[in-house]
């Protein structure tokens, strides 16, 4: 199995988990909806299998439509979009577009193009998040950093009594605007620098570590978990590491052969 196939299987696996989670969530909220949500999830998972085994971008788009249907319903029931569930759809869209582009240009490495498409779409989500902070909040978003403190207060668990572990650190951020400012600036750097994730294998690996660190910090401080997005960042960054190791191995083998 090629590295590109493994990446495709990884994206499909994350999307499959998303299908199951979304369908279950909808069925819990409105039990009657299980009648259509579960079959739609089933169709989506079958489409993902076809995508992986036959490399058909059209199957990926069917899966994306199924994900969208579940996503729209869940967003309606939740009273708004839950962006932590967007990652698999974004990666799937990018992967399919990349595959379609690779096929249309008869690129011999169409899976590499598809992988780059998935990474590019995911990188765009970080960049968009960073840009929207600058456009909507301006430099004050980081300068005053009240939004970041408000976010921690809003979503983390609250209880009277002594704080421990990450809750204590979260409280330090809330009570210390200078610390919040530092974290806000780091957030902007990581998000606006996301295009670097697309610039070569070493940067894919190193910026992937930054993105993962960002998600882990958010999860520790607020409890907001972007598990799918983290899984995809790990997958695409590890793919780069594997590619680097393969190149190093090939160089070593060639050098040994030349001797």
């Amino acid at each position, binding site marked *: 199995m090629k590295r590109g196939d493994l990446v495709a299987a990884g994206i499909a696996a994350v999307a499959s988990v998303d299908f199951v989670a979304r369908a279950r969530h909808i069925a819990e*909220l409105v039990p009657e909806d299980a009648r259509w949500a579960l079959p739609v999830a089933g169709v989506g998972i079958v489409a993902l299998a076809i995508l992986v085994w036959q490399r058909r971008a059209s199957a990926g788009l069917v899966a*994306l439509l199924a*994900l*969208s249907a579940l*996503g*729209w319903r869940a*967003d309606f029931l*939740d*009273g*708004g*979009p*839950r*962006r932590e569930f*967007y990652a698999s*759809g*974004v990666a*799937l*869209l*990018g992967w399919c*577009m*990349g595959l379609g582009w690779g096929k249309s240009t008869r690129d011999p490495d169409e899976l590499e193009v598809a992988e*780059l*498409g998935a990474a*590019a*779409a995911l*990188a*765009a*989500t970080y*960049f*968009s*998040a960073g*840009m*929207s*902070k600058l*456009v*909507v*909040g301006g430099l*004050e*978003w980081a300068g*005053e950093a*009240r*939004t*970041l*403190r*408000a*976010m921690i*207060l*809003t979503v983390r*668990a*609250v*209880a*009277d*009594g002594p704080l421990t572990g990450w809750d204590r650190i979260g409280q330090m951020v*809330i*009570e*210390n*605007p*200078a610390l919040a400012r530092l974290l806000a600036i780091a957030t902007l750097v990581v998000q606006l620098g996301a*295009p670097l994730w*697309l610039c070569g294998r070493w940067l894919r690996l190193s910026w992937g570590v930054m993105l993962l660190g960002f998600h882990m910090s958010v999860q520790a401080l607020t409890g907001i978990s972007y598990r799918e997005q983290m899984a995809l960042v790990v997958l695409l960054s590890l793919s780069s590491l594997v590619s680097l190791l393969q190149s190093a191995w090939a160089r070593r083998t060639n050098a040994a052969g030349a001797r």
Partner: protein
Amino acid sequence: MFVAYASIATVVRAYPFSTFDMYAHPEDTASHLLARDASGHVQELTQFDGWSCDATVENMGAPATCGPLGSFSITTYKDQDLLRWVRTHAGENGEPVDIVRRIWQLEERPGPPTMRDCVVGHCRATRHP
């Protein structure tokens, strides 16, 4: 793909497109629904079950219950998640518990933010052991 996604997301606001601007808007306030027992201690609503309330739980998330809209910020999905817990963990014979909206005012100074609690419902509930 990078440019295409980022561009389309500024126009199309449908899955899977988004500018992920949920934490972009400047906020001077934050709020969180909590359970407050008779001694005044607060905990997450999820620390209790067996809920029975004297008002419709769905309405407890409405901003109007705590003053004019815009005087504090709410996170709709978070509120809905918590109130869904109350609805789906109904029961009887618990201790008196108020559901309060804790509202924090953030200022540009070190130290804990000022806060106030606004009661949005009188209930009874059973504390988890």
